[in-house]
């Protein structure tokens, strides 16, 4: 069966390497989401055939636990199923020490930075320090991006930190940002596209593949907030070869994050 036929049968992607590169382990108050806990999400991943997910968390979640401890617990409950992003708070005076501590744990395979959540410029001094750290430790960095201004900042980051592998989270968001992200990914070998978005434009995956090639596009969903079904569907039913779909769904992530999947 082709991947399209598998999707139209509603069948799990058995035997495929599928890595959701953009997940969160706890729900948020801003909107209603059906992702109550990671057990529910793991069951959903089984139904679709998503073998692995990469988690980030922007705040400590209570119980006196550091967010990285929480991610580590989730990863330990499902060994090999989930891995984590280091998720430093640039306002925390100890973020450097925490980053160094948690980076030593093999569960953490990348860094997630969210300028909007923390109200800092995408290329603030703290993020520059983190980018240098990530470059040195071979950790890919996933940024939240939305709009052309963010993508322009990503270009600056890519040029300033040529050894860093930088993922443009949400691929710049709305149309203009997404189009610019595709252009930047085509021009910079260390910039990656991310399919995570609550909506995706008609034929956008085809435009990504055509514009930037299939080798630097990553599948993501924003689960436990957003739908993995919708996220996987836009790739499985895109008008691109199965070989490209496999790269986007997981093979690119496996290579980028050195995942044992």
């Amino acid at each position, binding site marked *: 069966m082709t991947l*399209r*036929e598998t*999707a*139209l*049968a*509603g069948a799990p992607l058995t035997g495929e390497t599928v890595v959701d590169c953009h997940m969160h382990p706890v729900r948020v108050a*801003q*909107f*209603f*989401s*059906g*992702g109550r806990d990671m057990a*529910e*999400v793991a069951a*959903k991943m089984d*139904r*679709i055939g998503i073998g692995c997910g990469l988690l980030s968390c922007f705040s400590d979640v209570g119980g006196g636990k550091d967010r990285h401890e929480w991610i580590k617990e989730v990863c330990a409950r499902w060994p090999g199923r989930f891995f984590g992003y280091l998720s430093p708070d640039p306002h925390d005076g100890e973020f450097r020490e925490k980053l160094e501590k948690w980076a030593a744990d093999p569960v953490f395979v990348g860094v997630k930075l969210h300028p909007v959540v923390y109200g800092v410029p995408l290329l603030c001094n703290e993020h520059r320090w983190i980018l240098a750290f990530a470059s040195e430790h071979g950790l890919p960095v996933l940024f939240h991006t939305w709009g052309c201004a963010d993508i322009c900042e990503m270009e600056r980051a890519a040029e300033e930190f040529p050894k860093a592998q930088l993922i443009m989270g949400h691929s710049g968001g709305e*149309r*203009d940002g997404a*189009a610019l992200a595709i252009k930047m990914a085509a021009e910079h070998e260390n910039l990656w596209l991310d399919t995570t978005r*609550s*909506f*995706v*434009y*008609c*034929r*956008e*995956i085809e*435009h990504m593949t055509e514009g930037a090639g299939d080798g630097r596009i990553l599948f993501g969903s924003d*689960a*436990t*907030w*957003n*739908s*993995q*079904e*919708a*996220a*996987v*569907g*836009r*790739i*499985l*039913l*895109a*008008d691109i070869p199965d070989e490209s779909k496999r790269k986007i769904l997981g093979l690119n992530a496996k290579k980028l994050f050195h995942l044992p999947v």
Partner: protein
Amino acid sequence: MSSLHFYDCNCLVGTRNDPPLWAVCDPEGILREMDLCGVERAWACHYLCLDCHPCAGNAEMLTVSREHPRLRPVYAAMPHHTGEFPEPRALIEDMRASGVQMLRLFPKYNANTFSLSDWSCGPLFEELEARGVPVLLDAGQTDWETVHAVCQNHPALKLIMTNVYYRNLRYVIPLLRLHKELYLETSGLKICNGLDETAKLAGAEKLIFGTGLGELSAGSAVCIVLYSALSDEDKALVASGNLLRMLGEERLS
């Protein structure tokens, strides 16, 4: 392949004055996307209804539908008070004669610019209630208080809210539970387990499949249903059964 029959209630076709980047506007392109994603039919409205006038767009949609029968015509409607659009009874007669089963409303300022309040749309809604004609309304064209008022004032009006932003479900779900003839088009259910949770809270019979073609990915819309945890029976209701029941059509096997 899927045993489900996907019938899309949320489709817009036609060249636009200011086409958004990547939007698929032509009927052939829309049909190609439908084929890729296993969508059998779409109930489509023409963009001329927005860029020119509903009368022009509706006539154009009939032409498109004659050439491409998988694209079923949907009319855009507006109130008749200014004399530029038929009175409700004449409108329904025209629809019946032309095989048009649903209406779409674009009341927002700079769209078709009119009020959904009873002093404006009351006569239209009364006729639609009496004749059982479903109405499609984009969430971005109105607000939830207005939706609540329309449903309260016209409890038999079959109102399908389309293109609902995923972050709006705390508004939508109580309204779906409150109003028997209020329905939700599914393409906006892009929260985690969105279809499953909405079906659990409001009932699978309230959900009508839609894609948002030719602006949004039909692949996402289809897989929301295919990979949901709903029973096969409920998936079939969402994919096409609920819409067909609403339109009074038997399922074509």
